């Protein structure tokens, strides 16, 4: 009787362990390398406006996502023409790009003839890496000052009374061995309350993200 109880208890124990194992251990599909990629033209987030367009996301089957818009306008905040967003990838590789023309932000406080954002990530020969090569700002003017087309990553410029803008913002992720990712935001405006300094919103123009693991 005691042996039976022990045996039954052991079986239950194995069952519980099995259930825990199946819940914790990913399936074979989940073990597979999972690249991610996305891109968008303009994203606005303020108390009065919230939108992202056009947005492209890499489908889970690892093929291609794309989207476009002839123009986007968020009154007083952001506008651009000929917006395209593309995201592609498969196991071990991900790439996305976003292009826009005739960009105007905050009623002309920031303008650019063209914006191109690219993010690329790959696993190769035991190393993971990402880069933003090919990204570009065409004829960028910030508060009346012309900015070099190859502006250094994460260049921050104050916008008095408005907040600040980060140009060619690059946000890396991953360990560089088994994983790597990069988000590129070519123009990232952070809106601040002039009195308190608290963030009240943000505008991102030309964004591309990719990652592999």
């Amino acid at each position, binding site marked *: 009787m005691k042996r039976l109880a022990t045996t039954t208890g052991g079986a239950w124990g194995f069952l519980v362990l099995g259930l825990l194992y199946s819940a914790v251990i990913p399936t074979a599909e989940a073990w597979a390398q999972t690249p991610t990629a996305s891109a968008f033209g303009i994203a606005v987030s303020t108390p009065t406006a919230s939108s992202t367009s056009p947005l492209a996301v890499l489908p889970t089957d*690892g093929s291609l996502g794309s989207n476009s818009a002839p123009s986007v306008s968020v009154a007083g905040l952001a506008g651009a023409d000929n917006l395209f967003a*593309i995201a592609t990838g498969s196991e071990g590789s991900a790439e996305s790009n976003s292009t826009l023309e005739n960009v105007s932000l905050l009623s002309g406080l920031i303008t650019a003839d063209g914006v191109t954002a690219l993010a690329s990530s790959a696993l*190769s020969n035991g190393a993971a890496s990402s880069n933003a*090569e090919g990204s570009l700002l*065409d004829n960028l003017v910030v508060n009346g000052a012309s900015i070099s087309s190859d502006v250094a990553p994460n260049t921050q410029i104050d916008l008095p009374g408005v907040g600040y803008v980060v140009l060619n913002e690059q946000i890396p992720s991953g360990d560089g061995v088994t994983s790597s990712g990069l988000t590129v935001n070519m123009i990232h405006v952070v809106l601040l309350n002039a009195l308190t300094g608290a963030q009240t919103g943000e505008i991102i123009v030309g964004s591309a993200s990719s990652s592999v693991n």
Partner: protein
Amino acid sequence: MFKLRNLELLCGAVAATMLAWACDRPESPVSQANKPLFWFGEQCPAAKMTGGGRIDAPFGGPDKNPPASHQYQTFGAHVISDGFASDGSCAVKGSLEWVDHSLRVNGSPLNLHSEQITFVEVLIEDSCKDGALHWGGRLVEKNTGEEYDFEVFDCDNGEPGARNDGFNIALSGPGESQDGYTLDCPSPPSLHPDNICTLTGGNRQFHPTHL
């Protein structure tokens, strides 16, 4: 016996010559412009190529063109083939999104979008050390709705893709306005033959596990 062996050798040489001649494909629309012919390998291999990026043409080098010139192209493309199906057709699928910022059609950049992928074959090219494919099908010019047959020259030359990998497309009818469209690449020095433009940014990834 000696004569018989000579005869066998002669037959072998003739067969090899005929095989090589048979494998020499007719010129493609791209190669008709006095550009080098590629050699093509296995038809409809089990193969996969993914990724996208940026090309700078017509200047064609791997350097970014001057600001505001709009002389560049951006794209995304993938092709996946499982080889020949039981009915003898090529089990290939994929997609292409192509934006040529240097061309304006109805006020917008030329925008091409694939509708169907119909063929894929191995592209034998030494400058694509990780793998290369020649594939294509039917696409639509979104600016006008015109349809075209297209072919892609797709090259993975290692990491990073920028300044190493290559890509180009070529269009032929039935549409008319972009019939014969292809990029004129590259400016020397270049890694690749004339029909393959080096990427300024992005990556093409050949997936050897699929082959």
